């Protein structure tokens, strides 16, 4: 499903060059739930961003569904992300000015579908995360766990095949964290979604199919 080949990422300033990722190759199968672990600054998020086509590698290739994506234009990448990938972030990144339903609807805005259909899909996604009774609320009226559930609903509203989660439980206490983890596991099982999750939490990582460890930009496990 996702194939990374010899990915390198360098950050250059005038004086120094930092290697964020050093020749990472990774093959993620369809329906797999993979977690990425490592100390802070080891390149986990950079790796996830490159997988999610939010950032371009300095060298190497990203293939999703056998399609090489490294050289697509901004517009083509945007369309590809819209169709195939859903994102979940540690700090939720909800739009505070919009209601829960409008937030969940976001990826669908960039598809050619009617507003009725958008509302139907977004409501469905909110039902899956157990928030259908909160659709008229604003994010500021929700708890951290509820916010993350809205973010998950947003990630799955467009039925993407891939979900990329960057420390989705990082800002939550363990009970809420477990709740979120259960939702992700359920999505993986029931919807056959391919999930890549960056985490610091060993117990969360153990619940997934496979664990990749990074250290200073290199893959160590």
């Amino acid at each position, binding site marked *: 499903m996702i194939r990374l080949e010899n990915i390198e990422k360098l950050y250059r300033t005038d004086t120094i060059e930092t290697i964020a990722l050093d020749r990472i190759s990774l093959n993620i199968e369809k329906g797999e739930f993979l977690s990425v672990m490592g100390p802070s600054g080891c390149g986990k998020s950079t790796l996830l*961003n490159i997988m*999610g086509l*939010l*950032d371009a590698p300095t060298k190497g290739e990203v293939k999703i569904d056998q399609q090489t994506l490294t050289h697509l234009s*901004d*517009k083509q990448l*945007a*369309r590809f*992300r*819209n*169709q195939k990938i*859903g*994102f979940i*972030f540690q700090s939720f*990144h909800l*739009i505070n*000015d*919009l209601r829960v339903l*409008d937030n969940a609807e*976001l*990826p669908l*805005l*960039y*598809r050619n579908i009617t*507003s009725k259909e958008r509302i139907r899909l977004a409501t469905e996604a909110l039902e899956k995360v157990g928030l259908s009774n909160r659709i008229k609320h604003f994010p500021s009226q929700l708890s951290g766990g509820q916010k993350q559930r809205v973010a998950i609903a*947003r990630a799955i509203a*467009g039925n993407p095949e891939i979900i990329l989660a960057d420390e989705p439980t990082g800002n939550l206490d363990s009970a809420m964290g477990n709740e979120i983890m259960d939702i992700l596991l359920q999505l993986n099982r029931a919807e056959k979604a391919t999930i890549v999750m960056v985490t610091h939490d060993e117990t969360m990582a153990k619940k997934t199919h496979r664990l990749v460890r990074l250290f200073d930009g290199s893959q160590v496990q």
Partner: protein
Amino acid sequence: MLKNYFKIAIAVLRRRKFFTFISLFGISITLTILIVLTAFWENVTSAGYPDMKRDRSLYINFVVQENPKEHGIIKGLASFYYLDHYVGSMKTPEKVAISSMFTATNTYVKNKKLVINIKYTNHAWWDVLEYQFLEGKPYTAVQIKNGEHVAVISEDVKKQYFGESGAVTGKYIKTDNVEYRVTGVVRNVSVTAPLIYADMYLPYTLSKADYRDQSINGMYSAILLAHNKSDLEKIKDEYQQVVSKIPPPNKKYTKIYSHADSYIKSYTRMFSKDENSSGIGIVITGALVIVFLLMLLPTINLMNINISRIIERSSEIGIRKAFGASSGTLAVQFIVENVILTLLGGIIGIALSLIILNIINSSSLIPNLTLAINFSVLLYGIMACLIFGLLSGVYPAWRMSRMEVVNALKGR
């Protein structure tokens, strides 16, 4: 999609109340100024009571005598003799209306001073201009010739001098210690048409200055009425020929020039520095510079606010990009938001203009001036709004669309 843009635009505006207020204030005040100015411009330049035949009229407001050796010029209104003798004998115009610039006279009504602006005219004046007589009629050519002390007064003067009583035709009015018999009362004319406006109209033969004086410059201007529009060029040509044949009045000032112009040009001629320039270019450039400066400040202000707004919303931009919005789509979203803001400002601006125009109309600051928002003024206003919205939205939107998703999400 648009509904979504609208939702978020309103939400953002409500969240940042202070900035919204500053933005809306800037836009609406600027627009109000523009609309009021254009209403003035419309009022002054378009044909209106009593100068209704402006499309087939030419105006002579300036005659210039030049001293080529010493680079001296005398520029001003013409003498009655000049207009009557040279212009009045032209073949192409249907009629030539001649009138003096208005001058103030004083009279006393019940020990209260009343200033009456008087104007001397010839008889064609009443044919060329379409005054509305509330009672009576204009003085006749014979009355003018005989130097009879007759006058046409405005309804304001009637009210102030005679009170609210009935007809006053045939009654006497005294100003600057001279008594005149009223032959008619006309509807008021606004002072924004200074060459037509007066409170009281008198035969030119009553002027204290000798109307037979043959000097070139004086205190009169003329309106040349053409039989039809196509004659205007012929009249201009004939006038040039007439001017070229006028003998120089003295040895020093050997050159005379003057033009029969359309209404606006007859005024802009005031700003021209040489014979061939009508001065309209200078006036239009000046007006554009003023409009540009007026619009520049709120535009820059709005642009700045937009940039800070975008930095504040970088997380939203990042998220939208991550979920499939291209840079172009986002740029459009921000421009639409901005246009919504400016249109809101526009609505407030139009409302403010209506109030201000109403105040100007009902105040006695400029008597008898009636300004109105008409269709074209409204159109200018809406156009100005859109230009605003685009100008102040495009640059920030471009900046925003260049943000990298990863940086945007980190708030950098």
